[in-house]
């Protein structure tokens, strides 16, 4: 996702205002003039300043470039040319681990998710399945068997 500097700057200005507002809601204590809100407020002012300068810089550039400036919003070229499914497959894998693995367990989510990702990246079906299985088993062995990390077992709880 490619944003113009003006748009990006505007976003940071908004973020600064939001942080400033949230910080103003922090409780303050009697006799303590410098509290929890001090640093966040300073940082928020920094966001607003930097964002504003970014916007001004872009506007000046656009004026001097006379129409030669880029669009306000564009997709990354690789994404436009067909990289989107791969990106969504990666994000889907992670979201599935967040939402589905507590219920289904890490193992099935990982094997299915990785197989799909490998297929989207145009590996053959056999290779995709084998690689997905191998990666999942190695992760499980390394983190669960060796390091005792409680990766979700899901419905396989008791079997493993």
């Amino acid at each position, binding site marked *: 996702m490619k*944003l113009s500097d003006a748009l990006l700057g505007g976003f940071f200005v908004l973020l600064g205002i939001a*942080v400033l507002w949230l910080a103003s809601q922090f409780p303050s204590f009697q006799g303590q003039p410098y*509290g929890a809100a001090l640093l966040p407020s300073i940082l928020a002012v920094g*966001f607003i300043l930097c964002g504003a300068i970014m916007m001004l810089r872009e506007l000046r550039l656009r004026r001097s470039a006379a129409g030669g400036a880029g669009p306000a919003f564009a997709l990354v070229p*690789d994404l436009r040319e*067909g990289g989107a499914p791969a990106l969504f497959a990666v*994000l889907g894998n992670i979201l599935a681990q967040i939402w589905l693995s507590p219920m289904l367990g890490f193992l099935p989510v*990982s094997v299915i998710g990785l197989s799909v990702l490998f297929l989207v990246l145009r590996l053959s079906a056999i290779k995709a399945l084998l690689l997905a299985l191998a990666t*999942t088993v190695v992760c499980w062995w390394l983190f669960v068997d060796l390091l005792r990390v409680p990766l979700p077992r899901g419905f396989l709880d008791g079997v493993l």
Partner: protein
Amino acid sequence: MPGLDILSQAFLLVMSPEVLLTALLAGAFGMFVGAMPGLTATMATALLVPLTFFMDPIPALAAIVSASSMAIFAGDIPGALLRIPGTPASAAYVEDSYRLTMRGKMNEALGTNLIVSCIGGLIGIAVLVVAAPMLAEFALRFTSYEYFWLATLGLSCAIFVASSDPLKAAVALLLGLTLATVGLDPTTGVPRFTFGMTDLLAGIEFIPAMIGLFALAEVMRGVIRLHGRAAPTEMRVTPGPLFKGVGGIIRRHPTNVMRGSLMGVLIGALPGAGADIAAWMSYAVSKKFSKTPEKYGTGHVEGLVDASAGNNAAIGGSWIPALVFGIPGDSVTAIVIGVLYMKGMNPGPTVFLQNPQLIYAVFMIFVLTTLMMVPLGWGAVKVAKQTLRVPSRVLLPIVMSLCIVGAFAMTNSVFGIVIMLGMGITGWILEENGVPVAPIILGLVLGPMFERMFMTSMIKSNGDLLAFFERPIAATLGVCVLLLWAVSIYKAVRQRRKPATPPVNQTH
């Protein structure tokens, strides 16, 4: 110098089979990750950290030191074979080493890279060993004012010295500092920016955030780029001994080795600037002082000597502020500081007093892994033709899995994965828009210390800002910071009259 008992204690700590084996395995892992284009030294470290979480401090540090030094050298291998730098630190001289390979001089290029990297690394360590304890003794007298200015100087360097667009680096830094304020406020105990989520009370877990920024963002960028990529270029691997003729090259360019190494240490020690900037600067300085600057970039070995000494020397340099002040010299040491806090070894001058054996053990590990680089590097070059064939479409999903599992392991809950995903998407979008991500991690690591020192100083002085300049060292540091800001802003305003150049996309 420390007593013999401390040195022998340190020696015993290092010479255990566990430490040696960890260093060897982590080194091999670092070699592999560094050699794969698109996977960086910082990523190698980020993926290793969840494993080191379960180790004792010394093997954990051994793993990080070993992986990061190997990865910096290994980045040279695909540079010479494919003209793609394996890590950003090898980008400065990729043209020279690739053209040397095209002329059938692959062994000369990579052999020189390897030996000079080792020498540069050792010089960096020598400076670290001498400078760190001296600075630590000096730093014992520091109060919150000095630490406040040091942290500010570090953060300012990250904005002005280490980036092509200070404004965007500043925004990244602000983002990191703001993220660091999430959770319970250390001075008043008030929850900040938690939006009622109990998971956020302890703050943004640092390691999942870093895995997101440096590994997941890279995976996302990688899979998008995979679409319709052409078949890999032909690799021209020259058989024969790797180190033939290397001795001659080093003997002809001793000043280059020294100059590159010293530049590397200095730049490495600056907060925010690491091996990649060290390599670019060493290369540029080398070209400036060379008798044959026109040959640079055409397969000339001189700049390659300076820059490959520089990037490895920067590793030692970056540990100086990290160990002495707890201020990271680059993104790898930012990770190291996080690990040190996790292990209860809070970095700062007191570690040198209370646990000197740990510090000297770290120094010994540095020497050990730097020497180990030569045989491991030799092996890596010999199998390069095979490993570089492993396609990204196989590698990237595996890295993604390691990200997921590693992030989970840091919180023992899916919340770690949530943080990783959020930071990964943020990092990806920011980098696509020319905002560097290294300052975010610097802000996230330095944030708590920066705020503690700032608040302590404010409360002590009752809000009197002049008190920040009352002590001599604090005043000197403060003036340095103000000068740095003044000069940078003056330069930026003057440059506005000239047409602006498009920002360079930095990857770390």
